[in-house]
């Protein structure tokens, strides 16, 4: 291996690592606030990428129907409850966001030639379809059992993961997709060719991390989420609704997932089931951070990305084995540093 190959591999590693870092942050966030281990994170990545690809091919993205169905279910549950409680305006609000919005979106996508629209608009529409599924999913699947033990929530996550993979196959087919790059621009630093997409990934990741940092540090909602993560009961007693915290968290996680998908779709071919492996690498990073520390998780993500890039050069057949075996020394280190017997929930 010479210097230039090492540089290229590092570039790949850092690009992927940036995506894993975003996913790891979302995973840590979701776990801290809701105790849900968000296995489906990867499916949001795939849904984001493939929805964009489908939109660009001129077809109506099938995910919009999923949004319509989920929205209808939420409306049925929450709208009826609001009506029974005599809260008419609330019921209208519920129906507006969960029923009218998805239908309007579907109608707009069907009527307008979005495949000719500028890329920025397509990305925006993709996010508009995929991201609301996050809070809807929380409402339908997790909210009724929000106080269940972590392991029950985990099994629900895994169940939703396999259901979403099956739906992904139904929506997008078995073919892989790769979307065109955001721009064709590229430049050279010494022997290294840096493509604009790499810069996009790094830039957006960095911006998002800064934005999240500001959100958690400076806004009331961000602080409410932090409070819930530290002490759920205490936060609830101070008037922070755990339901709101859950939905907001899932909104953020779905946003991060779908955006990551849109960002990497021009770099790697995405299949309906690719998300799982991408999400799991975010997990390895999150576990390095103990599912608690954001900076450690981000560093772990870079380590995973680099390891993966170099492993694919030296032993490409064993790439996945090496990446997932990385979790073993991490778990070993964690198990050596934890001594107390702890009570499971």
């Amino acid at each position: 291996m010479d210097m230039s190959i090492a540089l290229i591999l590092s570039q790949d590693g850092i690009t992927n690592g940036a995506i894993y870092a975003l996913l790891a942050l979302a995973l840590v966030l979701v776990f801290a606030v809701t105790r849900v281990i968000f296995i489906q994170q990867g499916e949001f990545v795939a849904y984001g990428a493939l929805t964009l690809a489908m939109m660009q091919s001129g077809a109506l993205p099938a995910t919009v129907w999923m949004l319509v169905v989920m929205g209808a279910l939420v409306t049925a549950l929450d709208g009826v409850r609001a009506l029974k409680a005599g809260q008419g305006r609330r019921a209208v609000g519920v129906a507006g966001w969960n029923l009218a919005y998805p239908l309007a979106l579907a109608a707009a996508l069907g009527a307008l030639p979005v495949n000719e629209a500028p890329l920025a608009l397509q990305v925006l529409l993709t996010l508009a379809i995929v991201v609301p599924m996050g809070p809807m999913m929380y409402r339908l699947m997790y909210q009724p059992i929000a106080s269940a033990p972590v392991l029950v929530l985990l099994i629900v996550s895994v169940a939703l993961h396999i259901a979403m993979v099956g739906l992904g196959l139904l929506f997008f087919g078995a073919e892989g997709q790769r979307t065109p790059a955001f721009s064709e621009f590229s430049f050279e630093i010494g022997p290294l060719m840096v493509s604009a997409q790499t810069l996009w990934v790094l830039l957006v990741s960095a911006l998002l991390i800064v934005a999240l940092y500001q959100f958690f540090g400076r806004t009331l909602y961000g602080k409410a989420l932090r409070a819930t993560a530290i002490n759920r009961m205490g936060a609830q007693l101070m008037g922070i609704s755990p339901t709101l915290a859950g939905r907001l968290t899932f909104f953020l996680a779905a946003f991060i997932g779908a955006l990551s998908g849109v960002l990497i779709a021009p770099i790697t071919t995405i299949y309906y089931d690719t998300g799982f492996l991408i999400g799991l690498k975010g997990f390895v990073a999150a576990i390095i951070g103990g599912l608690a520390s954001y900076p450690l998780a981000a560093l772990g993500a870079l380590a995973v990305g680099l390891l993966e890039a170099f492993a694919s050069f030296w032993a490409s057949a064993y790439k996945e084995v090496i990446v997932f075996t990385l979790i073993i020394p991490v778990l070993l280190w964690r198990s050596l540093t934890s001594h107390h017997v702890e009570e499971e929930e």
Partner: protein
Amino acid sequence: MRTDRIVLGAFLALLLLVPAILSPYYVTLLNYIGLYAMVALGLVLLTGVGGLTSFGQAAFVGLGAYTTAALTTAPDLPGWLAWVGASPWLTLVAGLILTAIVALLIGSLTLKLSGHFLPLGTIAWGISLYFLFGTMQDLGGHTGISGIPAIGLLGWTLDEGGEIYYLIWAFLLVAMLTTHNLLDSREGRAIRALKGGRVMAEAMGVDTSRSRMVIFVIAALLACASGWLYAHMQRFVNPTPFGVHIGIEYLFMAVVGGAGYVWGAIVGAGVITVLKQWLQDWLPSLLGATGNFETIVFGLLMVLVLHRAREGLWPILKKLVPVRARNKTIDPDAEALPRRTLPKAGELILEARDVTRKFGGLVANNNMSLEVRAGEILALIGPNGAGKSTMFNQISGVDTPTSGEVRFLGKPVAGHDSREIARMGMSRTFQHVKLLPTMSVLENVAIGAHLRSTQGVLSSAWRLDRAEEARILKEAARQIERVGLAEHMYEEAGNLALGQQRILEIARALCADPCLLLLDEPAAGLRFKEKEALGELLRKLRAEGMATLIVEHDMDFVMSLVDRVVVMEFGQKIAEGLPDEVQQNPAVLEAYLGGVE
């Protein structure tokens, strides 16, 4: 005749007749159900009973299948290994040994961690092993290994579905019987305490880390045996059935069937397998596309089960079958368990000297000293926040003093874990009751005798432990009668009133045959008559030479019972002496009633 035996007999007769009645298609389906149920049974033990979730069981199935496939088909094994490949039965042993080693390795890495790291770890190594099966050229890569021989048994070659059927179901039934026996034993009670009762179990001397490892290895071995059968039924293996998604399916089987029940494994495996067949025929034509769309239904079904019937289908089915669980019989002729020789009255049992415990700047205990002698009841009292619980933790070894020392029977307590302290003869109750609510009172109390008995996993699984089990149950029943809970012996512990649950904890502590009893607010929640009975019991124990330390708020109860009182306030001892003296002590009066200006 007992109805449960009739139902079981009918089920077995039906199983026996199946290949004669049903078409090969259904026999094959039942073969798969049997194979899957064996893996799901491991998950019942691991997840439903032990509270440890694994998504990686399919990898252990693969380990069993690939071990036998590689060894029985390899043309030229190295000399030292060649004899193993001669018979599938030898490769079964080889597979079980290999699986046990791998499970011990993985278990030692992940089992110490808190609950959710294990399932995440299992997903990761499940994927690693799957990719390993697919990439190792010696294992045939993604095309797999074919030409695996059929199993021979007493000159009979099991090369047809209807023949290996009997072997599969014999394996499964033996596995179920063993698991059932294991759960109904000393080790089984320790395993059942893992979910939600680890701190209590450790205080009763159970090595919970070992118990976790035991069920992890058993579950892996069951999966491995299933893989061995699978390989010789299919006569062909490739990596597909051992991926992490199949591992997820196994967990679904356990959860849908009823993860807490041995029979749930069969129900779950049956439901999921039949449903999968049906959906695979039906969904692609409905949706107009080919693919594994059954996962959509499985996923949503799973969420529905967890929302609506978290215990799974078995408890619902059980109501339809007229079988009721029978109470355990207590053998009055069983030999009593060995007892320790109690120290002579007046001998020093527990001594705390200058114990100081600081949490950052907060001094919770400051230079606390006290001693308890055999045949004496000492009360530790004080207003809320005085540091009594912290002191209790220093004495029971849960916490370590910043400075000073606690000695029990002349040996320092610090540096020993709860189990060792329990073995030395200190037994305790908890301020917040810690018991296993779905287990009977009898079984809860029997956990206390863990350290007075020795039978292990294998003897329990094969029912060689019955003599000792009878002794344990007799002792537990004796302690229950002694504390006055005899009429509740077979009730679920969770159904008792709070006061009775506290009494149950005392029976459990006594079952350990201690020489020092630590009681944390035993009279809280008791009615007057119950308090009187408790006082009577403690006096009787005192007469036998028991040393008792009691933390209590109920002054009437304390003052009429104990020999000496230590009063704490703001982490310090403000008075010590006979109950009457302490009640006159001005410092105590000020602490409790406020000062007179």
